[in-house]
């Protein structure tokens, strides 16, 4: 098991390094000159050159990259040129906010998705199953900026249950922020919910047809025992992978959703940074997102291995 984790950790480091190269390279080819962006169109050539030297932009790109990565690892994430503040505290504060939103969304769609998926599988080919499947399919195709607007119209504008905007103070506590989190969380959850439902349903249907489920039934075990001991353990395996891969979706969904609700999370920060050509901010935020994504996958792999002995002993 330890070997397995070490190997995966190794892969993870390689992935992050590759991603950091791509991120760095992509930001350097962004159109527009940083110095011009910061100093304005009428700045003197000399002033621009000074700024470039200050930012290290005159050095070869490989040197720029290693310098940046070295500082990043040591925790020196530089200063944002657009807000003139240290990057790291801002990123972490926004990350915390996104995390709060993600947790609420996660808590909504994972249990609900598994539950609905299970119900659909156990009642397969009945109207219950059809209703769940059709319903979830409808949401898969609906992008967040559409579902978000619909939700706002219904629950904020019409019913006044929740605020229409979530532009809270970035430093609000979870409790204070909670009412503002519900609508965006539902928006984020809807797309992922459909995936979890469909995955749970199909893997559970597969497992229910397995010979070992017949064995369990013919042992005379009660239906609930068969379900909990023999079915769920195997049918939730693929769901866990989907949930973990879904974290990538979640981040993508967060960026859009945060924009729709004006919620101060990491997604909105990234969008802001890109609009301002704020290289330090873009690089730091993007790489952090990559790290989160890779760690989530690692956790999923380990969880999968713990639950699946065939992989563990490989």
């Amino acid at each position: 098991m330890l070997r397995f984790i070490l190997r995966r950790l190794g892969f993870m480091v390689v992935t992050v390094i590759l991603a950091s190269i791509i991120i760095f390279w992509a930001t350097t080819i962004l159109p527009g000159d940083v110095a011009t962006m910061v100093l304005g169109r009428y700045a003197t050539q000399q002033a621009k050159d000074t700024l470039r030297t200050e930012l290290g932009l005159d050095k070869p790109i490989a040197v720029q990259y290693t310098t940046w990565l070295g500082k990043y690892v040591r925790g020196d994430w530089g200063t944002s040129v657009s807000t003139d503040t240290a990057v790291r505290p801002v990123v972490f504060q926004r990350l915390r906010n996104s995390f709060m939103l993600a947790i609420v969304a996660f808590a909504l769609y994972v249990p609900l998705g598994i539950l609905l998926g299970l119900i659909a599988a156990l009642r397969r080919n009945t109207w219950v199953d059809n209703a769940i499947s059709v319903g979830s399919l409808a949401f898969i195709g609906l992008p967040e900026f559409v579902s978000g607007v619909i939700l706002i119209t219904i629950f904020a504008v019409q019913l006044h249950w929740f605020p229409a905007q979530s532009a809270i103070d970035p430093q609000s506590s979870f409790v204070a922020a909670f009412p503002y989190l519900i609508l965006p969380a539902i928006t984020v959850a809807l797309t992922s919910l459909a995936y979890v439902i469909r995955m749970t349903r199909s893997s559970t249907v597969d497992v229910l047809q397995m010979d070992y489920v017949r064995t369990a039934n013919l042992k005379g075990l009660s239906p609930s025992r068969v379900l909990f001991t023999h079915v769920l353990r195997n049918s939730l395996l693929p769901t866990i992978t989907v949930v973990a891969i879904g974290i990538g979706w979640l981040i993508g969904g967060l960026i859009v959703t945060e924009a729709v609700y004006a919620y101060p999370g990491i997604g909105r920060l990234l969008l802001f940074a890109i609009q301002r050509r704020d290289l330090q901010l873009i690089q730091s935020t993007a790489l952090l997102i990559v790290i989160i994504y890779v760690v989530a996958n690692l956790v999923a792999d380990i969880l999968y291995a713990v639950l699946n002995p065939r992989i563990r002993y490989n």
Partner: protein
Amino acid sequence: MEATTPVQTPPAAGPAAPRPVFEVEGLHIDYTTELGVLHAVRNVSLTVHEHESFGIVGESGSGKSTLAMGAIRYLASNGKVTEGSVRLNGVELLGLSSKELRELWGSRIGVVYQSPLSALNPSIVIGKQLAEVARQHLGMDRAAALARVAEMLAKVAMPDPEAVIKRYPHQLSGGMLQRCVIAMALMTDPSLLIMDEPTTALDVTTQAVVLDLVADLKREFASAILYITHDLGVITKICDRVGVMYAGEFMEQAELHELFKRPRHPYTLDLLGCVPHFDPTPQKRSLVTIPGAIPRVDELPPGCIFAPRCSFVEPACTTARPPLAEVGEAHLSACRRWRIVPPPEEHLRAATEALATAETAEGGKATLVEVDDVLVHFKAARGLIRNREQRLIRAVDGVSLDVRSGETLGIVGESGSGKTTVARAIIGLTPATGGKISLSGRLLEPSTGRRPRSSLREIQMVFQNPDASLNPTRSVGDAIMRPLTLLGGLGRQAAKEKAENLLRAVSLPASYFERLPHELSGGEKQRVAIARAFAAEPQLILCDEPISSLDVSVQGSLMNLLMRLQLEQQTSYVFISHDLSAVQHLSDAIAVVYLGRIMELGDAVRVLTPPSHPYTEALLSAVPLADPDVKQKPIRLSGSVPSAMDVPSGCRFHPRCPRFLGDICVEQEPPWREGEGEHRIYCHIPLDELARLQAETLVLNPEEGGA
């Protein structure tokens, strides 16, 4: 009603009549499907007594598993028992609530399944899975249940039960797993044990061990056994009474010996004739074939359901369906004309023909393919951190053999013996890493890609699974035309005509030309695969287990087809199979392989009669022969074929050899011992010594009677 023919008293009539345990009467099972209601099982009755085992034989689609599962009320949600009665120890099962049923399942009724690996939960350790039964039905706590599991595992002769308890299913071999499932089924000393093809997924040698075990357990446990199988050979090892099912009904029921020696239904008679008779002789004979296919249960003929395929049919058979009626003591048949059903030997003589094999004189035939000291070694995947040294998988490790033109070379061995890899090396799909392969005296490149087109045409292959070897999106005609245009250089029109001829040659109607593979049955698909192989007019066809996945009657007709085409085209075959009966039936010469090396090679008759290599002897002892009178030697191989990464020293067969001599086998490679003709045995024991040890021949005189 008393029969006119003298009927032998069944041996089971002991002093105290055995108690009936499981009684099924007039059972009907329906399935509701898109096609409407299907009457899958109709008016079926049977009785199993304690200590008795009742065998249900039938081909796929005969309803044998549906009957067994329906009788214990375990059916898919669209299945339903509509009529009849099922009693277990006198208790009617059909009226029970699902809660009451669950109290019977696993306690009074134990089930053993076809594939033990899929019957066990992959993510739970063996001990816990087995203990569940004891906890559920015997009210034991965890520790007591586990102790009970260990005790049961010991009873099924499981080596090291304590260790097995902690293992996951994928860590055990098929034979070990089946023992676990049997132990689980017997945990509560059930009244009824249902065994649904329990050895079908196992190797012949493992199957023999498991069958021995079941025979032993039968004596120890009083359970009535309902044994389901398609294999007439297996039936003879286990069953006291046999019922033959066909399209959802019993055609015949009788004592084992009676059924095999005096069948009273033409279907039983035909089934017995489809199975190759074990009879080592150079003279080849065709097998009995049953024309047509099992009818679908929604398209049953009006009269006797077997009438359209029956060779004894008369007009009256097609009007009314004959009931299953007593035709002798404890002998039931659903045939109106049971009196004229001949004894099996007579039918065999009448319904089959001797095939005019070309002169079998020694040295009469030219060598077509020469395989000389061929190696196929793979490099095992290396670990990232440990296992730095490269390990070799020696799949084929020095194989030399010849295929003579117009003849069949059979290759037998257990799974993992490398027999398929030898064939793949000959055709070049898995390039040989050493040695020479030549065709008609020309040396062949190891890999297909580097061989000239003409040699590609000359060697063709028929694979085991026709579902996987036929492209599902290409029509039958396309599949056969492909080699004609690609390798034969024919134009489209000429190719089409030729393909139609080939369809005819493999006895498929020309209307199949446009069909897609999924519209064909398994046997038909394999006929297409054979037609495709013949399309290139090859000199050699490699048949890799071409009939293993098919029903007995289909196997018989495919073997007939292969033999007929060989005679017509003078094509050579390499016929690979784990089924010695089929191999002996088709082959002129046989190679017995073990762990990548030939153990014995020679003319079929010489290989199958003493002196034999101890491995051949063990394989011969393990084949379940479809004749209850044949006594086989109780030679059993323990364990399974070792990994080709850890080939044992000296003679690679020594760890499992029943005739192990001692250090010499461990330390030295055995010599090739040359016998008469071109018979060669790879063993330290001299041939005359082997012959003396094996003096007790395989096929004993039939007068001795069943064991």
